[in-house]
């Protein structure tokens, strides 16, 4: 500053002061000129005006402290103009129908079209006014730029363009003189509703009006939100809620879950589309949750349980796409309620289907269990809920086996089906899978015979001769069985049955292949661990050793002549199921005894200190029998051979009574009956029974059937099949299993206590349950009893407070 002054004093050319326009006098005039110009601008006559001139007017007014007058004047002019526009352009286009619309009923065609057009006209008018207004506001903003730059920040008032928006809100959208606001919102809603009802509307017009609402914002004082979110959105959401609540009820009334879901899906995508095209994306999430809330959340169970089209029927008819839709839509429901509902329903359905399988199986079984019962023909065989003995066909002996196989097959199929659905429709959802598994576990364990059935099913697949199956088929079947096996709780029962079945397969040489057997054992090993399969593997080892030693024995017999060829399987008693190895021995005839002695001599020479017990019930024998017509080679069980040999010395016309046979063979009652039945009542009747009949009675008398004829040279006389346990046998098995469990529980308790020394009752019980859970679920009272047993035998003792135990070494 001092520099400048200095320069001026030195007499250099003088600095011209900025010229001062004549102030006070011209202000009024200036404003009149400017106001006129503003009106011209508003009437689209800007091209007649000089920008520079009016810019300068505004500039001068601001420069000479008349900003407030300018600001207020401009505001007044804008308001005036907007009122005029409202009057002239908008009011005449008020639609007749709006204002009353809302959730109204569906309007019929022509009316709807007309209403759509009216609404469109109105909205267009609003839009035109808006465009007009914003256009002139932009020009005003340019002309009044100096005011915005200097006056407004200093005065703390909004920029003139924003004033224009506020004024538009005041005079048009929320006009106090005209009911534009009501009409605008109502028309927008009615346009949207018309589109929901399937009419065609001009989306761009709606979009433009929504944009206006979005552009207009309330002042900070009133929350600073857009008019869209304060005035329109709540109305819109309320309206949508009403609309969809009504629609949900209406469509659900029609009782078609699949259609309903399709509709929901359509609506969801429509509304997404709608928000994207002409509503604000801000509304999307709200609208979406609103749809879900009204279309899905209250109707979850209704949809699932809809008769004839709900979940049950979708699964029944494998409607994968419907199920997929169901799943995807249900996932939208908040708090995971959809998934939970679906889980429950799925579980219920799977359990239901499982129960049906169980019932069907129990049914066909009860048919076979009581062949003496009168068969009723009038029961519909399809009616699965019919009381027992509903099966009207004649029950054959294999029926129980068939029932068992069918049960497993059905379960496997069911599992396949759910697995497929889970994969294809439910995206492999883990929690759904869990529910399905729970359902399987529940129904599989609900059938007390499932361990036996599973083992039988495996038996059927590993056994030779039934049906020719490829290795892959067997493999697949076994894999599936293994998955069912996982659901099983009483795995120890399964083990028992499996051992029996395996023993039979091995001893009778019925295994289809060693590899398949070992494969299965390997699978079980993977599932259950080494202990579980130890004995099974022992059985395989026994068989292998026997085969190996058979060769040596052959050499031995060359020196010690016996009248027949003999091959012996030596079984380790502890590996083999007790029901098989404990079958009591019988008196072999003198002929057979010689062979026995030879083998015992041979065996004692190789192994010392081992006791051999001969099991007549497990072997087979080939014997050539001369009948009247010709000789036949008979393949019979060892027991049958023992019986047949009795008849060797009996003249053909004489007979032996049941009691005589029994006393000379010492066979147990059940075995003898079965043997006799297979010889006298089976397909090939080498013996004749008097009186005739299917059952063997202790008063019956038998004779050799010399007149036996057959086309076959070689005849295999099967032991009358006794695969599925009879009730009595089952009871025995149960007992044995219970006995075994006792030991296991005790062993387990001791194992734990040895480790921990002192443990509270609850901890001990839960630890026992945990350790044994892979084999079976030990019932609490049993565990308690075992603990008491151990205390009695002084393995444990109660400590002072009675609630803990101490291990006594």
């Amino acid at each position, binding site marked *: 500053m001092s520099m400048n002054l200095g320069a001026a004093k030195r007499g250099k050319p003088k600095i*011209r002061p900025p010229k001062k326009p004549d102030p006070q006098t011209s202000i009024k005039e200036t404003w009149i000129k400017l106001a006129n110009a503003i009106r011209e601008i508003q009437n689209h006559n800007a091209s007649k005006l000089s920008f520079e001139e009016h*810019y*300068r007017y505004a500039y001068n007014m601001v420069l000479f402290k008349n900003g407030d007058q300018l600001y207020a004047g401009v505001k007044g002019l804008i308001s005036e103009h907007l009122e005029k526009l409202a009057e002239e352009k908008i009011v005449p286009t008020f639609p007749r129908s709006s204002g009353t619309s809302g959730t109204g009923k569906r309007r019929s065609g022509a009316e709807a079209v007309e209403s759509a057009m009216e609404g469109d006209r109105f909205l267009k008018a609003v839009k035109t006014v808006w465009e007009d207004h914003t256009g002139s506001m932009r*020009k005003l903003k340019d002309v009044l730029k*100096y005011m915005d730059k200097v006056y407004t920040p200093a005065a703390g008032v909004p920029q003139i363009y924003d004033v224009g928006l506020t004024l538009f809100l005041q005079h048009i959208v929320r006009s106090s003189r005209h009911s534009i606001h009501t009409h605008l919102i109502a028309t927008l809603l009615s346009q949207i509703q018309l589109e929901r009802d399937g009419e065609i509307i001009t989306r761009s017009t709606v979009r433009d009006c929504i944009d206006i609402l979005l552009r207009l914002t309330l002042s900070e004082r009133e929350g600073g939100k857009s008019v869209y979110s304060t005035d329109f959105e709540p109305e819109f959401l309320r309206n949508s809620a009403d609309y969809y609540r009504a629609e949900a009820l209406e469509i659900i009334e029609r009782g078609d879950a699949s259609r309903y879901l399709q509709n929901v899906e359509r609506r969801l995508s429509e509304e997404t589309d709608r928000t994207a095209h002409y509503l604000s994306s801000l509304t999307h999430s709200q609208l979406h949750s609103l749809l879900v809330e009204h279309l899905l959340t209250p109707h979850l169970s209704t949809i699932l349980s809809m008769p004839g089209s709900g979940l049950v029927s979708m699964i029944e008819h494998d409607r994968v796409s419907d199920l997929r839709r169901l799943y995807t839509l249900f996932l939208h429901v908040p708090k995971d309620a959809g998934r939970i509902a679906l889980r429950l329903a799925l579980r219920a359905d799977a359990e239901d289907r499982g129960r049906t399988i169980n019932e069907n199986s129990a049914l066909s079984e009860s048919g076979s269990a009581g062949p003496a019962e009168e068969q009723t023909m009038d029961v519909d065989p399809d009616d699965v809920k019919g009381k027992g003995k509903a099966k009207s066909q004649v029950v054959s002996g294999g029926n129980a086996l068939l029932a068992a196989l069918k049960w497993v097959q059905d379960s496997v199929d069911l599992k396949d089906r759910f697995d497929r659905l889970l994969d294809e429709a439910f995206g492999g959802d883990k929690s759904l899978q869990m529910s399905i598994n729970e359902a399987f576990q529940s129904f599989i364990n609900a059938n007390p015979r499932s361990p036996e059935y599973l083992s039988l099913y495996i038996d059927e697949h590993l056994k030779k001769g039934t049906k020719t199956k490829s290795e892959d088929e067997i493999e697949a079947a076994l894999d599936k069985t293994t998955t069912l096996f996982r659901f099983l709780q009483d795995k120890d029962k399964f083990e028992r049955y499996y051992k029996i079945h395996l023993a039979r397969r091995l001893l009778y040489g019925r295994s289809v292949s060693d590899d398949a057997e070992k494969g299965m054992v390997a699978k079980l090993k993977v599932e259950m661990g080494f202990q579980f399969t130890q004995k099974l593997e022992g059985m395989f080892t026994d068989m292998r050793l026997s085969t190996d030693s058979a060769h040596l024995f052959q050499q031995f017999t060359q020196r010690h002549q016996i009248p027949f060829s003999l091959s012996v399987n030596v079984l380790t008693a502890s590996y083999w199921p007790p029901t098989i190895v404990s079958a009591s021995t019988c008196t072999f005839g003198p002929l057979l005894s010689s062979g026995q002695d030879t083998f015992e001599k041979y065996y004692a020479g190789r192994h010392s200190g081992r006791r051999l017990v001969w099991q007549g019930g497990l072997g087979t024998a080939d014997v050539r029998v001369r009948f009247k017509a010709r000789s036949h080679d008979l393949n019979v069980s060892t027991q049958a051979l023992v019986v047949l040999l009795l008849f060797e010395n009996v003249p053909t016309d004489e007979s032996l009574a049941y009691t005589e046979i029994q006393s000379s063979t010492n066979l147990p009652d059940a075995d003898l009956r079965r043997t006799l039945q297979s010889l006298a009542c089976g397909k090939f009747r080498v013996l004749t029974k008097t009186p005739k009949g299917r059952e063997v009675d202790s008063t019956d008398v038998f004779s050799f059937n010399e007149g036996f004829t057959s086309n076959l040279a070689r005849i295999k006389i099967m032991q009358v099949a006794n695969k599925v346990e009879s009730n009595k046998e089952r009871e025995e098995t149960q007992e044995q299993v219970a006995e075994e469990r006792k030991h296991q529980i005790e062993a387990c308790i001791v194992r734990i206590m040895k480790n921990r020394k002192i443990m509270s009752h609850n901890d001990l019980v839960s630890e026992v349950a945990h350790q044994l859970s892979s084999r079976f679920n030990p019932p609490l009272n049993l565990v308690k009893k075992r603990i008491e047993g151990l205390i009695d035998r002084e393995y444990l003792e109660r400590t002072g407070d009675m609630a803990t135990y101490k291990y006594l070494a």
Partner: protein
Amino acid sequence: MANDDDYVLLESNDGFKFVVSRKVACGSGMLKSMLDDEAAFSESRSKVCHLDYRGIILLKVIEYLSYKVQYADFNSEDIIEDFADRIDPYIALELLTAADFLDT
């Protein structure tokens, strides 16, 4: 239509006329608004702007606007030349009001 290759005529109050490229002219906010095709004031049609300043002031304004365009893409630290050196103190005050008016 308007593009940066256009030229506009700026007239001073003492009769000087300057042909200036639109790009340079639009460095001034006021001139930019004035020439805005959409707003369509008379100047945007005629492309002639009368400005109430002496030619010497307008010349300096245009010089500054060109300077601004020339260095538009530079970082401020890369510009060695200081425009203040080019301003004659005798016109400084007048130039200042013009700059304020023209929103440069």
